[in-house]
């Protein structure tokens, strides 16, 4: 057993990984309802493979979930037409969630990145992993992660600049 290995219940596994899986799903779809569907299907697949996942470390579990989410999203994309962004914006406002517009804007900004860059940006800024950890998890050199992150940083900062006053930065 490695130090990183986690032998927990499926509920612990779900609680630990839900924020990342949901964030990646949201960043991919820019739509809360669809993100919830992708999240559920991803965890259902994880439940079927939980005996194996229990023997993996945290990083391997994350990598497995991101791969599963990609497959689930591709399957879902084949079945459904993309929703109009205006509709999802209305739905976000109708929910009366103070963060709904911020969530939608961030999700849209991330959705404009390619898949790998989106995962790198989320692992860096949402999960707060460093370039070395991200590189190990995604199977790419640390230098490549740094270069891609520099491009993502510039694009996201430019795209989300309107929120900088709001966050007091």
């Amino acid at each position: 057993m490695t130090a990183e290995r986690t032998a927990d219940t499926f509920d612990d596994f779900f609680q630990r990984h839900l924020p990342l899986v949901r964030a990646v799903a949201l960043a991919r779809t820019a739509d809360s309802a669809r993100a919830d569907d992708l999240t559920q299907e991803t965890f259902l697949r994880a439940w079927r493979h939980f005996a194996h996942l229990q023997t993996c470390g945290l990083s391997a579990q994350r990598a497995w979930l991101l791969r599963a989410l990609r497959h689930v999203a591709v399957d879902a994309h084949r079945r459904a037409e993309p929703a109009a962004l205006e509709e999802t914006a209305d739905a976000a406002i109708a929910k009366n969630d103070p963060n709904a517009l911020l969530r939608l804007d961030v999700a849209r900004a991330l959705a404009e990145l390619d898949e790998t860059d989106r995962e790198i940006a989320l692992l860096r800024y949402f999960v707060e992993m460093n370039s070395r950890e991200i590189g190990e998890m995604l199977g790419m050199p640390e230098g490549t992660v740094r270069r891609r992150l520099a491009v993502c940083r510039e694009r996201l900062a430019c795209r989300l600049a309107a929120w900088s006053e709001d966050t007091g930065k």
Partner: protein
Amino acid sequence: MNGPDTGETDAFLQSVMQRALKPMPNETQAMAARLAEAIHDAERLEAEHNLWQCFTGVMVRTATVVRQSVSLSPAVWNADILGLRS
């Protein structure tokens, strides 16, 4: 975006993403409940599938026995199983 700006930009992006993407406790609860229901359905489907597999297994074995009976002794098959008397 190099030098001191990088750290500031990273802090800004980190703050924005945490605020925007972190699920609320009620969202987490709702998704956990929904997933529990989906797992329950999957377990039920799996049980039904197993039952069906078991049933078809029995049917296949029965058919095999019947075929063997026929090939080994057609007279017995006709007389005792189908009730035909010559």
